[in-house]
């Protein structure tokens, strides 16, 4: 018999504390594996946020959206418009991005959630591709006679944009460089200490991620979260239990859309540029991979999945034969050439092959993702398996 015990609030607090410490010290502990440069760390954090939000919908309710990149893109466009009109402060940009993507999620979710299963997925995919087409060709902008998304070039901040609040919030500071700043603090700035790089933009994103993760944890442990889990298990029973499941799934959809919009806004911090390619279906598929790889329905899994995918993308896609020769130097010369030529198919532009293989292995052998794998190892090490068996024996004896 399977026993399920949920972490108590003190266990959750400890986990949260470890998580916060780990995120804040990323520039230090990522240095040995060569991943500690600001741009990559920001991507870990931003896609971790995106995946965490996606998991609230997919992990809890089981509704698989194939169109969440649309909200990522909408968040980016809104943020750049906020930069253009209000100024280079990330806070109004983030607030507007969350609001606008939330409104879009409400409309798209309301229509898509009229169906479930594969039809729901297809509807969300269709909406996302529509958003992509609208942004790529700037259809609404053309209709209104303004430059809304700037088509395939992408939307960027220009020197003659109004930026109305820039003079108010950052008086006396030169903002003509058009970099994002938090009340005067340039977010592209990096402090260097003992060779470690501490980037202001990274810490801004990390701060947002920590708050968003805390909110996600509250949702997971709340009665609302329990209802979402019940939707996944048996929606029919839930309806006959007096629960209107539609607004629950819609709320989950909107929340995850808002997380995506926030992630989209954060993507514009280092580079205030929004392009339509951010909304393409491959981006929607990537977040599904992240969540499944890390462990759907777990709190930390999506973040791990996002980190691993972004890290491997960075590493494997830049590798070529010379790096492989160096990496596989322990293999005798005679066979090394063959091994390298085979392995070279899986790096560089072929790194998606590696991703595909890893994904297949996870889905077949470890459906719970990396978190499930970690839990199994932990059980073997601590022997908590034995404790579970004792509880089971007690339960059976009581029968």
């Amino acid at each position, binding site marked *: 018999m*399977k026993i*399920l015990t949920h972490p108590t609030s003190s266990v959750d607090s400890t986990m949260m504390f470890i998580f916060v410490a780990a995120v804040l010290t990323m520039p230090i502990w990522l240095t040995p594996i060569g991943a500690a440069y600001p741009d990559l760390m920001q991507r870990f954090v931003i896609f971790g946020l995106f995946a965490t939000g996606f998991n609230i919908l997919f992990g809890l309710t089981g509704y698989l959206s194939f169109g969440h990149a649309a909200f990522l893109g909408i968040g980016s466009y809104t943020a750049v418009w906020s930069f253009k009109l209000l100024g280079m402060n990330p806070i109004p940009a983030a607030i507007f991005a969350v609001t606008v993507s939330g409104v879009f999620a409400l409309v798209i979710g309301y229509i898509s959630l009229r169906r479930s299963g594969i039809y729901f997925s297809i509807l969300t995919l269709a909406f996302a591709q529509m958003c992509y087409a609208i942004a790529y060709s700037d259809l609404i902008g053309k209709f209104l006679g303004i430059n809304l998304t700037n088509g395939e070039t992408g939307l960027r901040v220009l020197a003659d944009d109004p930026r109305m609040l820039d003079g108010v919030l950052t008086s006396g500071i030169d903002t003509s460089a058009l970099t994002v700043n938090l009340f005067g603090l340039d977010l592209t700035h990096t402090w260097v200490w003992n060779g470690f790089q501490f980037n202001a933009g990274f810490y801004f994103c990390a701060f947002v991620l920590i708050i968003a993760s805390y909110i996600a944890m509250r949702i997971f442990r*709340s009665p609302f979260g*329990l*209802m979402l889990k*019940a939707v996944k298990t048996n929606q029919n029973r839930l*309806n*006959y239990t007096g629960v209107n499941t539609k607004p629950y799934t819609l709320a989950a959809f909107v929340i995850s859309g808002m997380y995506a919009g926030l992630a989209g806004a954060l993507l514009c911090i280092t580079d205030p540029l929004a392009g339509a390619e951010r909304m393409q279906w491959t981006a929607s598929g990537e977040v599904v991979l992240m969540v499944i790889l890390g462990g759907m329905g777990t709190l930390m899994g999506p973040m791990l999945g996002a980190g691993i995918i972004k890290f491997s993308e960075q590493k494997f896609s830049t590798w070529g034969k010379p790096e492989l020769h160096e990496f596989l130097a322990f293999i005798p010369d005679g066979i090394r050439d063959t091994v390298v030529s085979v392995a070279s198919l899986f790096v560089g532009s072929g790194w998606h092959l590696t991703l595909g293989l890893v994904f297949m292995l996870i889905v077949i052998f470890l459906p719970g993702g990396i978190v499930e794998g970690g839990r199994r190892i932990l059980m073997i090490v601590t022997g908590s398996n034995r404790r579970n068996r004792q509880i089971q024996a007690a339960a059976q004896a009581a029968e």
Partner: protein
Amino acid sequence: MAILQVRNVNKRFGGLQALDDVNLSVEQGTIHAIIGPNGAGKSTLLNCFVGRLTPDTGSVMFNGKSLLEISPHEINQAGVSRVFQTPEIFTDLTILENVMIPTFAHRDGSFKVNWWPRVDKEAQTRDHAMSVLDEIGLADKKDIVASALSRGDKRRLEMAMCLAQDPKLLLLDEPTAGMSRADTNATIDLLKRIGKSRGITKVIIEHDMHVVFSLADKIAVLAQGAVIAEDLPENIKTDPRVKEAYLGEEAVA
């Protein structure tokens, strides 16, 4: 006083008259059994009470309120709970969570974004769920995932989930189907016991005559979609129309 009043209900599936002018009156606080041979329309009738099916004509009134044209969750919020023929439970969740969900639904209504409090700090809800599990005899299994339960326990769990909501009317679709004699007797005792102090009205669909005659205060007999008799158990036992419906004309002659 009649808590459930069914008037002239008709339901047609293509060429089949599934329900033929059904009239039924269930008194508050009683156990009312609906019996009949296979295909008599018993489950169809029950589906009309919970919003799964809408009759072509007729009315279903519960406490003076129509149950037609409203959705299943509204019917449940009005005080009608249903136990299904194959247990409908939350198989991925623990026994305790299974019973806490209906308790939350009873407390918070059909929709509430209650995202801040922790489930494990909701002592009142948990205590209520535990008291129901105690009553039904599943308290010692509270942390077990529901999919691991035996069929009989799954059915008891579903009953606990319905009772946790303090329903006014409990609908049970063949609560002893596929059970051994011992389990059947245990279920009969359970059904007699549960909700008696709270005066819960129960409507039971059943095949097993032993169960029906040990439980029911009143019995309605359904045959080919029509109610052919509605009476006290002792009168039903001797009713020639009932014998005919069950055994065929020759047996009566």
